[in-house]
């Protein structure tokens, strides 16, 4: 992962609606990149393009290139299933599988990919839950339903589930927007821990959060990337007046 992710001239559509216009940026490896912008600016669509989840929506289309380790995710013949295994995703609302226990949720990715070895699964589940800072809280109730955990725990369960398949990149789509400040702080702490091993791209509405956790930030507006750069510089000395208006709350 020396190269990180290089996005070139990325366009995305929902049917006839052109939602992303020629996005280009470079995401550093083993670092946190934040994507900010008002609702409907295309930031969620953007990260969904990074693991080929955008095309899951009927009528959705993508053009352009996304190079991960020099290989284009959108080259012909690339299997989106393989892409998603390497590039995990966490969603806005925690979505543990309701028919599965805590353990089964975390093991789901491996088990459904054909791993049967019990010892290997136990090991992977413990590692993923520890990694997601949830192990101590759930180690005594691994067989309880995943949906029995609190909202913040559920979100960390989803992070553990994504980590268990061993991705190189973790995409987070507003992972804290449904959580209280304490749960949010835990997730942010976790993000800072995870970036030692993973490339993280996080979409957030919360500018303080972007400032706290990320090295680089991109500001999206109306489907365009207005500004992209080092987080501190973007927040203290924005180059574009639209960025300045947004981060100072003078928008609209």
């Amino acid at each position, binding site marked *: 992962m020396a190269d990180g992710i290089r996005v070139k001239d990325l366009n995305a559509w929902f049917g006839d609606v052109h939602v992303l216009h020629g996005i280009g940026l470079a995401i550093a490896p083993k670092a946190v990149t934040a994507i900010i912008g008002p609702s409907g600016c295309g930031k969620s669509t953007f990260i969904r393009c990074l693991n080929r989840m955008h095309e899951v929506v009927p009528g959705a289309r993508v053009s352009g290139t996304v190079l991960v380790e020099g290989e284009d995710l959108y080259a012909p013949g690339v299997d989106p299933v393989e892409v998603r295994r390497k590039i995990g995703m966490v969603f806005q609302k925690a979505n543990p599988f309701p*028919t599965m*226990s805590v353990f089964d949720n975390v093991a*789901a990715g491996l088990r*459904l*990919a054909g791993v049967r070895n019990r010892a290997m699964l136990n090991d992977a589940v413990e590692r993923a839950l520890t990694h997601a800072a949830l192990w101590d809280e759930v180690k005594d109730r691994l067989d309880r339903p995943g949906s029995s955990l609190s909202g913040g725990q559920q979100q960390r369960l989803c992070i553990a589930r994504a980590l268990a398949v061993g991705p190189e990149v973790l995409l987070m789509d507003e992972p804290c927007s449904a959580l209280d400040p304490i749960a949010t702080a835990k997730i942010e702490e976790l993000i800072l821990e995870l970036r030692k091993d993973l490339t993280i791209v996080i979409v957030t509405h919360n500018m303080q959060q972007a400032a706290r956790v990320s090295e680089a930030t991109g500001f999206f507006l109306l489907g365009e990337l207005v500004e992209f750069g080092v987080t501190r510089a973007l927040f203290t000395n924005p180059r574009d007046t639209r960025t300045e208006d947004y981060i100072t709350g003078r928008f609209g």
Partner: protein
Amino acid sequence: MTARRRRWVNVVMAALTALAALGTILPLLFIFGFLVYQGASAINLDFFTRLPKPVGEPGGGMANAIAGSLILIALASALGLPLGILGGVYLAESRERRLPWLIRFVADVLNGVPSIVIGIFAYTVVVLSMRRFSALAGGVALAVIMLPIVLRTTEEMMRLVPASLREAALALGLPEWKVIVRVVLPTARAGIITGVMVAIARVAGETAPLLFTAFGNRFWHQRLDQPIAALPLQIFAYAISPFDDWHRQAWAGALVLITLVFLVSLAARIATRGRYSAVR
């Protein structure tokens, strides 16, 4: 004043809705009570173990009809459930527009076709080509009745599974078929089984489509390509007879039939009361 009025309206409306809810289950309670009153006296061990006696002889039972009904339901389920559930998966998951629309439309029409017409269809297709009445023909007729119910409930229940779960599974790098089989179907399981139970309860009591397919049989059935007895048929035959003893047995048969449906529904409820079920 307005607060008093609001409380008063609240009490009245709450009472009305409770009464209405009670009213919907009253018919069932009445039917069940009436069946017990009329039929309980004819229920004994013989009723479950003996064949019907010839006209004029007292006693006998409906063992062949009970077994026949179970066999017909099993046949109909074997034919109708795989087709209905797989078809429902297609309707829920396909990205096509026109074919699913057409299938949905036809299934809804089929659901409204009188069961006797479906009996005529099974008669024409199965009975005439085999040149005899048979359990198989009865099973086909009942399966056709089950199909649209199972198809549409499977589809509806799969659609109730939140899109976020599909996305979570896809984002783990699962191929679409595994997402369906391992995540969507288990989540929708309880609802699908409820639909299956509704379909079974519906066909268990069907009489008209069996009249000229399964035909009925006063003895133990021999093979699946031979006529077979069924509870609704036996009830019908006994109810229109002039003998008091047979009338009592008809009531008893109805009681057994309704109990059978009740037990099957109850068993399904208990079997699907999984701790993790989301959609019911």
